């Protein structure tokens, strides 16, 4: 039964080899049929900005901030015409588009070039193949298959993918923690001037120093945070006990109240229900009776279940006699609960697998097109089916 260590029989090995070969062959065949597969297209936009010079008003002696406007806006164009050496900066921005937009553009330019022989300089359209993203897509497909390969057995591809996910995720979390928490909640408060200049230019600076002083309270979390990192230094490890104590303490205090209010009191409250309840369906007397039976039974079963399960979790008395019997009913309820959880969990897992297979079929292999990203019907589909 030990699948990952037991040597395989020759026939099994052969079957798996065939499966792998079939997959590789299908990918090769697929890439040569129809519009191919696994490409990403982007639309390019030139984001250029011109800096409007600062202006000084003599009357009020106020200085308006120099500001940036798009060069292709009315204001920008007017200004650039007047001041050709104004400060201009910019970059190219790429937006992902459905491949069908590219196909349409290609078809249009093909028509144009056949229609008139003089339009040789039609030039590349604004929609084009994005190499970084196309490579990315293939990398993603490779990683997907590399992880799936673990199902066959542990192998270097899987280990590589595993290492990548460990490294990337640790880095990812640090980066997000820095930009989304430390910058706005700490640096902005402790050094608003620096933050405004380099990170968050949209923020407002404290109007006076008196407004700023209270921010220095935030030196406390900074120091505690740094003490936490001291854990990395072998001899200063004990420093981290202080922030740890703070973390554990606040969490314990918060949870004590939260759970008693939200889970203890509210759930007792929800269990106080009448054992006899009139049904909601009252069309005929017969149905009224049945509906009442179903509704009352539900309430009775809930109350019995809560009490019996609580008895199972009662640790002061040995489970014998009546208590033992009640505790047993409690276990039955627990088992039904676990069965329900099992059913729901299975359901969730399969949906996740379906999503991954959809990624492979849709984004990478271009076999199906549920989101109508490529309206042109694929001929290769017929071959596969």
């Amino acid at each position: 039964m030990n699948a990952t260590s037991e040597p395989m029989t020759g026939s099994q090995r052969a079957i798996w080899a065939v499966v792998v070969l079939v997959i590789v062959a299908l990918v090769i065949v697929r890439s040569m049929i129809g519009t191919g597969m696994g490409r990403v297209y982007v639309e390019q936009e030139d984001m250029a900005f011109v800096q409007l010079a600062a202006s000084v008003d003599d009357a009020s002696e106020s200085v308006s901030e120099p500001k940036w406007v798009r060069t292709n806006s009315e204001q920008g164009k007017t200004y650039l015409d007047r001041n050709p050496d104004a400060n201009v900066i910019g970059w190219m921005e790429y937006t992902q588009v459905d491949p069908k937009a590219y196909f349409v553009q290609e078809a249009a330019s093909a028509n144009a070039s056949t229609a008139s022989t003089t339009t040789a300089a039609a030039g590349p359209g604004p929609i084009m193949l994005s190499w970084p993203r196309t490579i990315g897509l293939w990398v993603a497909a490779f990683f997907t298959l590399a992880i799936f390969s673990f199902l066959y057995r542990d192998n270097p591809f899987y280990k590589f993918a595993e290492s990548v996910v460990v490294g990337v995720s640790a880095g990812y979390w640090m980066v997000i923690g820095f930009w989304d928490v430390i910058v706005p909640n700490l640096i902005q408060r402790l050094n608003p001037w620096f933050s405004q200049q380099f990170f968050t230019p949209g923020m407002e600076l404290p109007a006076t120093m008196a407004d700023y002083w209270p921010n220095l309270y935030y030196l406390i979390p900074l120091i505690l945070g740094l003490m936490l990192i001291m854990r990395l230094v072998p001899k200063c490890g004990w420093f981290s006990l202080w922030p740890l104590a703070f973390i554990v303490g606040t969490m314990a205090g918060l949870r004590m109240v939260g759970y008693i209010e939200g889970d203890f009191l509210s759930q007792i409250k929800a269990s106080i229900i009448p054992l006899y309840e009139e049904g909601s369906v009252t069309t005929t007397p017969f149905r009224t009776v049945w509906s009442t039976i179903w509704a009352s039974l539900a309430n009775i079963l809930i109350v019995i279940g809560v009490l019996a399960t609580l008895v199972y979790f009662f640790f002061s008395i040995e489970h014998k006699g009546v208590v033992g019997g009640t505790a047993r009913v409690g276990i039955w309820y627990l088992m039904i609960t676990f069965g329900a959880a099992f059913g729901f969990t299975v359901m969730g897992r399969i949906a996740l697998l379906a999503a991954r297979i959809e990624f492979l079929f849709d984004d990478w292999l271009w076999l199906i097109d549920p989101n109508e990203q490529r309206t042109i019907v694929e001929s290769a589909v017929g071959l596969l089916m």
Partner: protein
Amino acid sequence: MIKLLTNLDRRWIFLAMALCVAVPILVIGLTGKTIPETPTPLAEAFFNEIDTAGESKGRRGHVLLAFDYDPASAGELSPMAISLVHQCAQRGLRMYFMSLWPVGPQMIDESISKVIDRHYPELVYGEDYVNLGFKAGNEQVIKVMGIDLTTEFRTDTKGTPLQQIPMMKGMTSLEDFDLIAEISAGYPGTKEWVLYSATQYNIPMVSGMTGVQAPLMYPYYPGQLKGLLGAIKGAAEYESIVNVWVREQKFAEALVAGGMDEAKAQEVAAKLMDKPAQVSTWTESAEAADLDPKTKAELITIATAPIPGEFLEGQRRMGPQLFAHLLMVLLIILGNVVFFAQRRQGGRS
């Protein structure tokens, strides 16, 4: 046979599972057909709660959309998230997106680009929706938000201070939201929101969640949670309700644009929605005599237009679900057959 099953390599089970999922995906992807959905009361309650958000205060609902999940659970949850944004956008609610998960902002971006950018481009950032991004600290973030919103959230993801965002005006704490709609994949998630916001401040809350969490959250319904969507089935049910409703709204919009008064338009739209196939017949009827040809043509377009693929994701996924569930039942039965056969053999010898 029993011997074969006893020594069955688990990779054959893996293969069976792969086929049970992959083949229905291909078939559904190629034919475009999905399995019909009948919504359960929980999904309807979820829908209604969002539909009436803000009505008790007589204002446009202010909904906090907390997307606490990551790509790992997106297969189950993104159909819910997309339908949720779809309903909010169509209903004209103000959407405040946020996340307690580091990759949550990516999930928010995805829903915004799939629903708002593509289908509701008229919505304005900062007036109709805002992305507050991620904050570390799990339930402590909720706790702080309950007391004061701006202590924790100083800027949106674009770095704009909240005071400069029009729709943040008057929003000081969690109590200013009319509804919390949470999409949750674990900790922190539905439970934390229920404990530290819905219970503590009596804010109405609905939640969509993974199959793993759903059974655990049932005790909160209908008290602390007003609506609950569990796993992909919940997503598919909710999605079908929203799709039907959106089409009805589109009918009503077209009718109002064509000069019908609102109450009448809603009524007619509901009628048309019952039998979308007969819309073209209806446009010839006496009731539609006052409508101009442009409106009629629009009604027929709405009735016949296919639902965009992104709004069918959940329902598409119910196909592989069906076959995989049958496989699971089969596997459990087979496993037990093997177990009991072995035990009987063991007993004899």
